[in-house]
């Protein structure tokens, strides 16, 4: 087994690290308070190539394997999660559908502009009555000549105000249930497309989530992504693919929190000695470090399996579940070790604590991940 990353990936990680230190971190407070990533930072991120992480080299992206992508995402996880969520949603669920299921024409129209970051991507599945039960979506797509006409509403769509390209799930055959769902590539400029108000959130400031309204939204038939009726399966595959990247970002955040907490514990004096000397603090840190290390190898193992072309539905669900839960436990301990200052907004720990909470909910709740794992187990053992 060889766990070494290639020299190029190490170089990329160093470049991202540098960028975070000099460009992102100095803007973090402002992003948090204004709930807005400055245009200049988005522009600099484009120039660095951060929008092309998932896109093949022939379309102007980096053409990275899943292992390499996770290495970059782990690095990105070390800074303000709202900023990295924009990149995560674009490089994950926002573009992976077109990369995986797109026709050559669709790929050449969308991917180069998405790789450069000129066009930001988003993924639109969730509806008011279809969250965890994603197959219950009600947005309809009716074929009229060479077009489909979409009507309905989506909620909690990350990147909605910034995105140009949306992978949208809609029902083309209401009598076939999950098999009657089709995926479409929708551009924000298509007539009948509207973005609703931006939600105010507990965390992930800088990343925006909003509703989408489709009122007789016209989509040309060449924008059907994959086959008609395969939208639900596509969505599950896109989400499974996104899970490794999500866990890798959580991993980076956990590592950041461990670094900060350990340094703080060594410096902070109480009872005439560093609090690190208290065995309870040592145990907290040891538990954090052990869980982070477990998450690290789980992340890279699942990514490696995906690179081998293996079916990772079960493993990706385990990773999403474990990564989110570990991030929340680590963030909780980080606040506890920091004490009062961990609760103060002048210091980044409380921000990570709030940002961690959504990971147990979005892109499939922890509970749904357990359902997926159990369903796979049943399949394995019942057959």
């Amino acid at each position, binding site marked *: 087994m060889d766990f070494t990353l290639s020299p190029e990936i190490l170089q990329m990680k160093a470049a991202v690290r540098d960028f975070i230190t000099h460009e992102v971190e100095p803007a973090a407070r402002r992003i948090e308070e204004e709930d807005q990533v400055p245009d200049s930072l988005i522009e600099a991120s484009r120039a*660095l190539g951060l929008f*092309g992480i998932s896109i093949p080299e022939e379309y102007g992206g980096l053409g990275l394997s899943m292992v390499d992508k996770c290495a970059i995402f782990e690095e990105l996880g070390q800074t303000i999660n709202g900023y990295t969520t924009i990149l995560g949603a674009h490089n994950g669920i926002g573009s992976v559908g077109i990369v995986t299921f797109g026709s050559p024409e669709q790929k050449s129209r969308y991917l180069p502009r998405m790789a450069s970051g000129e066009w930001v991507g988003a993924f639109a599945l969730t509806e008011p009555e279809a969250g965890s039960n994603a197959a219950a979506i009600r947005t309809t797509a009716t074929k009229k000549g060479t077009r489909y006409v979409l009507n309905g509403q989506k909620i909690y769509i990350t990147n909605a105000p910034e995105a140009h390209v949306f992978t949208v799930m809609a029902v083309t055959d209401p009598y076939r249930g999950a098999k009657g769902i089709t995926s479409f590539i929708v551009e924000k400029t298509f007539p009948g497309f509207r973005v609703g108000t931006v939600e105010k959130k507990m965390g992930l400031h800088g990343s925006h989530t909003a509703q989408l309204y489709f009122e007789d939204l016209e989509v040309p038939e060449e924008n059907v992504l994959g086959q008609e009726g395969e939208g639900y399966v596509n969505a599950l595959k896109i989400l499974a693919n996104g899970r490794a990247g999500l866990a890798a970002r959580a991993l980076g955040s956990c590592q950041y929190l461990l670094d900060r907490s350990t340094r703080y514990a060594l410096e902070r004096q109480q009872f005439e000695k560093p609090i690190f000397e208290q065995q309870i603090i040592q145990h907290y840190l040891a538990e954090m470090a052990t869980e982070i290390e477990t998450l690290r190898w789980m992340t890279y193992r699942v990514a490696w399996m995906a690179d081998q072309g293996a079916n990772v539905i079960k493993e990706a669900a385990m990773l999403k579940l474990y990564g989110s839960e570990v991030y929340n436990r680590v963030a909780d301990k980080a606040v506890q070790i920091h004490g009062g200052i961990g609760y103060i907004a002048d210091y980044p720990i409380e921000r990570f604590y709030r940002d961690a909470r959504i990971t147990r909910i979005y892109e499939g709740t922890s509970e749904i991940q357990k359902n997926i794992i159990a369903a796979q187990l049943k399949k394995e053992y019942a057959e």
Partner: protein
Amino acid sequence: MKILVLVKQVPDTATKIRLNPGDTAIQTDGIKWVINPYDEFAIEECLRLKEKAGGEVVVLSLGPSRVEEAIRQALAMGADRAIHVMTDAVIDSQVAARALAKVAQEEGYDLIVTGKQAVDDDQAQVGALVAVELGLPQVTVVIELNVDVESRRIRAERELEGASEIVELPMPAVITAQRGLNEPRYPTLPNIMKAKKKEVKSVPLDSLGVDTTPWVRVEELTLPPERPAAKILTGEPEEAAKELARLLHEEAKVI
């Protein structure tokens, strides 16, 4: 226009320098290696010249195999290809200059650019010595550079103590870069991928046929003495100011 840029790999400037008794070189295990910061200004200037005038930027480095990391970084910034003069030997500025000049001669050039000094041993010799070896005009400590490709003339502003001077010289020439010349770019992720496919030619030092006997040998290395703790003056401002003036005059001897 063909530009050679001489790049040295040095310990990161934040490195905590460690020495064992009797060492004639610093302990290198666990050190993070980077491109000499002054060479980064040199690389950036070469890339800008190439963007304006066309041509090619060739990185020329000397040292053990770890130096390839610095070379890849220079290629990721945008240099076209590289030559790595490979040696594990401890060499002095003179040997380095001879070797680099020899390779430059074989390679051909319109311009040779490097940092004004390397931040590891701070000798500030190699750029100048390369010019001597090749019999070229040189301008050092440059903070502004204008190259007229048509007339093959260079106009450079160089920093002096408390002043600056403008010099003109013909091409080819050797130029050494000072901080302030430009703001070096980040290597972008796509350029890091592209750099992977760029040519790095490895040339053993011994194959160059240059005399590798050093002129300078390090006898001994010692760490600078620990800085004494700061003195804090208390009391009435008038008294403290008097005491400060006395200390500056009698102890620090700066006024």
